């Protein structure tokens, strides 16, 4: 360990010490205001993002972490995303009520910082052990965050459900790691990539790891938890789940698959095809008639991961670029959509049914416009980032000759337009609901606007994202 490594590790150290600091402030003799705690959390997150921006590329820390363009891009994205989620949580009406002593406090913010630490570890890991550590540091705070304000209906149930399923996923993943070690004698991703004579155990190991990751990403058929958890969790936590947490796991999946282990790629390909296919089709079909907005977005994100797998199944460098761009775009689009959902809550609980949003787009033009932009981006309409992501993903599939997969993907895209447009139509519908309006907080409006501007900006200038890791020296 050199001093230079310490500089490289600065974002991780900042996040850890941030979590501890917030916890300390919480037990300070004088009561520290929520505003103060939030500001401290934000400061640590922004500092971590800034520290990541000044990384010298490429670097390795031990054999565990690799600092390259991808990890820089996604570390910045995850920390900034977490900052956005802190803002959303601060303005989130159901937890804003200080009188009920249910305010977001040091525990919540500390858990959020540790979850972010898990993500940053995950996106930078080049060793299966560090990836596992990252996954667990990410998962454990999430159990608690889902069950935030346990008195809520379904809160504990959701937390326990996620804990059990994530436990299963971790077990699969760990077993996969064990088998990989047994067959090759190494857990280093780079070393794994050079193995040429893996036995029959390696495909099994990869499949098990894929199952573990599939659980985390809610790919069909491991998706059962997603709609329930999306609905049960407070919306800012759902936003965390749906955007940066998934993207972090996704980045690790991209690293894993882009090893292109020659002898097992052939065996893996049908699996990827299958996962991509049923995730797209099932996600979209289940979303079609869904009435609850958060559940609908859960199904839609299942479908999106299907599209990303279409890109990854291409197995070429374009596929990797497409998947990375898609992951970035996915974070921004979902963050935007969920920030609108978080802004428009009832005073004590989330809105459930889509109908409860009727006419709100007219009443709050900025939020309505942001929702429109983000949903159209999710649907894949030009000139948004969602379109560029799909163009790259389908392009990768066509370039690899997977024409059938590309055609199925576009038919799914067409299908998905139906439910995204339905939401927008309701947002701008007549006869608005007047029940229980709490004025949306400035923080969530700001997040929604920034996200929608980014969605359009990244769509018109995709090179911002592509070059962010391409041109890494």
């Amino acid at each position, binding site marked *: 360990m050199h001093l230079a490594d310490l500089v490289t590790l600065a974002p991780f150290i900042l996040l850890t010490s941030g979590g501890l600091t917030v916890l300390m402030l919480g037990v300070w003799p004088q009561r520290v205001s929520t505003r103060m705690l939030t500001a401290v959390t934000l400061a640590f997150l922004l500092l971590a993002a800034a520290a990541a921006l000044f990384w010298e590329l490429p670097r390795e820390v031990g054999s565990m972490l690799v600092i390259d363009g991808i990890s820089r891009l996604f570390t910045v994205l995850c920390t900034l995303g977490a900052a956005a989620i802190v803002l959303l949580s601060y303005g989130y009406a159901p937890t804003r009520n200080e009188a009920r002593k249910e305010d977001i406090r040091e525990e919540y913010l500390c858990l959020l910082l540790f979850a972010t630490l898990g993500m940053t570890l995950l996106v930078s890991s080049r060793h299966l052990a560090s990836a596992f550590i990252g996954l667990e540091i990410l998962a454990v705070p999430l159990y608690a965050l889902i069950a935030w304000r346990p008195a809520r209906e379904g809160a504990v149930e959701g937390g326990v459900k996620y804990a059990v399923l994530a436990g299963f996923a971790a077990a699969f993943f760990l077993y996969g790691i064990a088998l990989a070690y047994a067959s090759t004698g190494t857990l280093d991703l780079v070393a794994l990539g050079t193995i040429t004579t893996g036995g029959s155990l390696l495909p099994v190991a990869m499949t098990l790891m894929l199952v573990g990751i599939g659980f985390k990403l809610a790919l069909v058929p491991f998706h059962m938890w997603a709609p329930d958890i999306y609905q049960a969790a407070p919306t800012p936590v759902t936003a965390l789940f749906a955007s940066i947490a998934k993207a972090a796991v996704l980045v690790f999946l991209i690293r894993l698959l882009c090893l292109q282990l020659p002898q097992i790629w052939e065996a893996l390909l049908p699996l990827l095809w299958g996962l991509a296919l049923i995730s797209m089709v099932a996600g979209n079909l289940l979303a079609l008639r869904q009435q609850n907005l958060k559940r609908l977005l859960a199904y839609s994100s299942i479908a999106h991961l299907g599209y990303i797998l279409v890109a990854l199944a291409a197995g070429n460098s374009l596929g990797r670029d497409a998947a990375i761009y898609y992951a970035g775009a996915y974070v921004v689009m979902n963050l935007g959509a969920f920030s609108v959902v978080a802004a428009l809550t009832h005073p004590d609980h989330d809105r459930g049914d889509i109908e409860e949003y009727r006419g709100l787009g007219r009443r709050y033009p900025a939020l309505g416009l942001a929702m429109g932009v983000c949903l159209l981006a999710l649907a894949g309409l030009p*000139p948004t980032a969602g379109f560029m992501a799909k163009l790259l993903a389908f392009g990768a599939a*066509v370039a690899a000759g997977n024409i059938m997969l590309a055609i199925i993907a*576009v038919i799914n895209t*067409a299908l998905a337009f*139906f439910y995204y*447009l339905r939401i927008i139509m309701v947002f*701008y519908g007549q006869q608005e609901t007047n029940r229980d309006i709490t004025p949306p907080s400035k923080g969530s409006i700001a997040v929604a606007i920034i996200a929608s501007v980014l969605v359009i900006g990244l769509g018109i200038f995709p*090179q911002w994202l592509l070059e962010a890791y391409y041109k890494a020296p």
Partner: protein
Amino acid sequence: MYWLSVLIFMPLLGGLLIGLTARGRTAYSRWAALAFTGAELLIVLGLWWGADPGANGYLYMLRAPWIPALGIQFLLGMDGISLLLALLTALLGPVAVLVSWNAVQRNWPAFASLLLATQAGIMGVFLALDLVLFYVFWELMLVPMYFLIGVWGHQRRLYAAYKFFLFTVTGSLLMLVAILGLYFTHGKQTGIYTFDYFELIHTSLPGTSGMWLMLGFFMAFAVKIPLFPVHSWLPDAHTEAPTAGSILLAGLLLKTGAYGLMRFCLPLFPDASAVFAPVGMTLGVIGILYGAMLALVQEDMKRLIAFSSISHLGFVVFGIYAWNQQGLSGAVILMLAHGVTTGAMFALVGMLEERSGTRLMANFGGLLSPLPRLGALLLLFTLSAMGMPGLANFTGEFLVLAGVFQVSAGLAVAGALGIIAGVIYLLWMYQRVMLGEMRSEQTWTDLDRREALVLGLLAIAVLWLGLYPAPFLDILQTPLTTIIESGVAVTTGAADAPR
């Protein structure tokens, strides 16, 4: 020529400006929308005036890098075909604003911005020569149109809007796959990965790949035109849309499909299109007869005009796949004529509906005496729509039939039957609405100045196209020759079209 990008971005920014600054002021948004569409028309007229054909038939070009890493450019070009269609787009802009003046009752600012955004998208489709850019505009025009139908439409507006959107988006996504396929085929052959139309036009497509790619494009265009099996969105969308929406749909959106066939399907895939031409012509003739038959039994005036559009667009496809000078120029002229005539017909139905609250022909009758001016103009446009010599559609239909006759006399006869059916349903419509006994007690007011201005503009265009189409035909000469040469090279067995 940066004026081309002005044509696209001025309505877009204008729409944004109105949306952000109007704050519910109806009069302001009306006049601002009229000003923007009017300025658009003046710019296109100016471009027409200053047109100076280059060597390859392109009057204006604009090329700027956009996403160089992927070979995507901001490439706009205007040749004779684009110019005439841009002219039509710009003409129908103020018409759409003026007919909505009183007809649209709520939320004018939003309506105006969506109208302008649609116009910008359509303009982009007619000008874009980079395939990704083309696709961007192709999808971009759908969304505002969807909202125009879904928010300001009639009773079954949501159903119609969804149907319209899902049909067209499915078609265009298949085109996206075909675009990507073409891109990679070209890239693998030459090592240059680009979406540039002028590069891709020389791609050689071995085996059946050309046919599949062509079908991908064809699907998108066939849905838009719409051709026979995929037409079912059109009657609903046209009927449920507000008057301005119907005018833009029938006048412009349908033309984008036919334009796509001419601009992309034929020159990019000459071999496949040559094989496909008989099928295309057959689909065209089915459209002509099927649309005419269904128009015969309609009770709703808007629905009748919608089916007549299917019939007329069948003629356009007919002419395009005849693939000779007469057929193609007839097709373009007929597109213009149909845009103007049908736009006027929809405007007239909208005016009748504003006055009486109904579109059913059974509720009208004997309106010629209370509404002499409206009746006379309806007669003019009805005669034009059924192909009366001296009026716009005749020129187009005549040229198309002349072109098709050289290829297949039988099909030409079948197409001509469609004209006869057209005479029947159009005259019958006129008779039921304007002649006979009055069936309603209400008091009628004839055209006011605004309405007379709209219809007068369109009437001038109809007469001009019918009586003196030479300036339009002249400007089409070079670009159409280029398209024909790509086909001739195939039929004569030459390895590559002359560049």
